C-alpha cells in the first residue's frame, strides 16, 4: 500500500470558466486526491467590466440602467439601493404610494430570483422537472414586470423620488391570480423535490458555523441558513418595511439543506409581504418631483438594502458635480463566495456543485 501512495500525484481540475454549474464565467481550480478535494482556488475576473470606474464618467441618471446589469435576476433591488443613496443625498422623501409599489416590485423580484436559484440548483443536481415548474412561476412575474415597467429583466423602473409609472389595473389582476396560484405551486415543488435522492445529496454538506458567518462577512440566506439573524429589512428597516409584518426564516445547522429551506420559506414570506403591501397600498402620487439635472451635494452617501443574496450597499462620494467622484458597491455574492475555498476541501467532487449552488452566486456582480 505504501508504494501506491507514493506514486499518487496531485490532480488538478479546472472547473470553469466554461462550466454549466458556475452560472457564468467563474473558475475554480480544484486540487484532487482521488475523488476528494484537497484544496481549491477561486479565480475571478473573467467578467470584469470596470463598472465602478465607468460610473465616474457617467452622470447619475445615466448610471440608472447600468444598475440593472449587475445582478440581472433581481435587478430592481439594485435600482433601489442606488436610488435610495441618491434620495438620501438630495433629501427627497418618496410618496407613500411609491414606497409601497417599490416594496411590491422588490419582493416580486426577490421571489423571481429565488425561483431561478431553486431551478438552477436542482438542475445542477440533476432534477429537471422542478426547473420547469419554478420557471413557469417566474415567467408569470416577468409578465407582470413587462406590464408595469416595460421590460422583463432590465427594468429601469425606479426613479429619484418614486417610480417611473403607476401600476396598472391589468397588473393588479395578474398579481391577484398569481398570489392565488403561488402557494399551491410551492407546495407542489416541495413535494416533488424532497425525495430521498435530493435529501441524501444536500443534508450534512457544507457546514457554515455562526463564527464563520461573522468572520467572512456573509449575509443573506447563506448567513440565515446558519441561524444568524442578519436581514437589513429587520435590523435597519428602510422604506416601509417597519410597518409590514413578516418573519425571517432561519436555519439551524448551516448545511446546504438549511440554505435551501431558508430560500423556499423566503419565497412564501415575500408573497405574504406582497399581499400585505397590496392591502395597504394608498392612493396618491407615485413620484415626487425630482430635479432635472441631478447634482448631489458634496459628501459621502451610503444606502443599503437586502438584495436576494444579502446585504447590498451603494456608496457614493460626490464632489458636487453631475458625476460621482467615487462609486462603490458592497455586493453580497462577492463576500458569500469568499467562504467557498474553506467549504470545498474534504468533500467529493460531485458535492462541489451542490455546495457552490447553495451559495447562490451571480458572477456579473462579483466581477463588476
Amino acid at each position, binding site marked *: 500500500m505504501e508504494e501506491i501512495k507514493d506514486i499518487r500525484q496531485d490532480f488538478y481540475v479546472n472547473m470553469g470558466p466554461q462550466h454549466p454549474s458556475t452560472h457564468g464565467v467563474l473558475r475554480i481550480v480544484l486540487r484532487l486526491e482521488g475523488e476528494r478535494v484537497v484544496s481549491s482556488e477561486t479565480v475571478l475576473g473573467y467578467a470584469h467590466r470596470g463598472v465602478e470606474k465607468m460610473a465616474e464618467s457617467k452622470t447619475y441618471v*445615466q448610471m440608472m440602467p447600468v444598475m440593472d446589469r449587475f445582478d440581472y435576476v433581481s435587478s430592481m433591488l439594485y435600482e433601489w439601493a442606488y436610488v435610495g443613496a441618491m434620495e438620501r443625498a438630495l433629501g427627497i422623501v418618496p410618496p407613500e404610494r411609491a414606497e409601497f409599489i417599490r416594496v411590491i416590485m422588490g419582493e416580486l423580484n426577490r421571489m423571481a430570483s429565488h425561483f431561478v436559484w431553486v431551478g438552477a440548483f436542482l438542475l445542477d443536481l440533476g432534477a429537471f422537472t422542478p426547473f420547469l*415548474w419554478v420557471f413557469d412561476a417566474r415567467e408569470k412575474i416577468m409578465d407582470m414586470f413587462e406590464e*408595469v415597467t416595460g421590460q422583463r429583466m432590465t427594468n429601469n423602473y425606479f426613479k429619484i423620488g418614486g417610480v417611473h409609472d403607476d401600476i396598472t389595473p391589468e397588473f393588479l389582476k395578474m398579481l391577484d391570480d398569481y398570489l392565488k396560484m403561488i402557494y399551491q405551486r410551492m407546495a407542489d415543488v416541495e*413535494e*416533488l423535490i424532497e*425525495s*430521498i435522492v435530493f435529501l441524501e445529496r444536500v443534508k450534512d454538506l457544507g457546514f457554515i458555523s455562526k463564527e464563520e458567518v461573522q468572520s467572512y462577512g456573509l449575509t443573506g440566506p447563506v448567513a440565515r441558513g446558519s441561524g444568524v439573524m442578519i436581514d437589513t429589512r429587520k435590523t435597519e428597516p428602510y422604506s416601509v418595511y417597519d410597518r409590514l409584518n413578516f418573519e425571517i426564516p432561519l436555519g439551524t445547522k448551516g448545511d446546504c439543506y438549511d440554505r435551501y429551506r431558508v430560500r423556499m420559506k423566503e419565497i412564501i414570506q415575500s408573497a405574504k409581504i406582497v399581499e400585505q403591501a397590496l392591502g395597504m397600498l394608498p392612493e396618491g402620487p407615485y413620484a415626487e418631483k425630482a430635479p432635472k439635472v441631478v447634482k448631489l451635494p458634496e459628501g459621502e452617501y451610503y444606502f443599503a438594502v437586502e438584495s436576494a443574496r444579502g446585504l447590498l450597499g451603494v456608496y457614493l462620494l460626490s464632489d458636487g458635480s453631475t458625476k460621482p467622484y467615487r462609486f462603490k458597491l458592497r455586493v453580497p455574492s462577492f463576500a458569500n463566495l469568499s467562504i467557498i475555498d474553506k467549504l470545498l476541501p474534504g468533500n467529493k467532487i460531485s458535492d462541489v456543485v451542490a455546495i457552490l449552488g447553495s451559495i447562490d452566486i451571480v458572477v456579473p456582480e462579483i466581477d463588476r
Partner: protein
Amino acid sequence: MKASYFEKVGIGIKTVVKGMAKSLTYFFKKPVTLQYPHVRKKIAERYRGSIRLKIDPETGKFKCIACTNCEKICPAFAITLKTETPEGSKKKELKEFYVDLGRCIYCGLCVDSCPVDAIEHSNVYEVAERIKDNLILRLDKIGEKNV
C-alpha cells in the same frame, strides 16, 4: 437514528412514486409554452421596443426640435443627430436622426429626456439582421422600417 439500507430503499421508492404522481397531475394541465413563430404573445403596452420618432398629426412633420437631449443622455451612445440651421432662421432643424440598434440598451432614458415628447418606444421586438450595418436605422425618413 439512522435508517437502515433497506428502509432507505423503501423510502426512496415511496418518494419517487409520490413525485411521479404529482408530475402526472401536471401532465394533464394546459401547456404554458407558445409555438412562437405561429402563436405570438400579447406584448404589454408599455413594452420598450425599438425607438421611433413621432409625427405631429396636424402638420405631418416630425415633432423633433433637434435639441439633442437624447443624444447627450444615451448611456450607450446609440443615438446620433445631425442638425442644420437654415439661412435666415435662428432655430436648429433636424437633418438626420440615426439610432444604432446594435448599441441601444432599450433603457428609455431618451424618451424620458425629450422635452416635446417626440420620441417613443414601439412594440417592435424582432429586430434581428444579417448585416450589422442594417441595425443602424435612420428614423427621420418615412417609409423606413421603423417609422
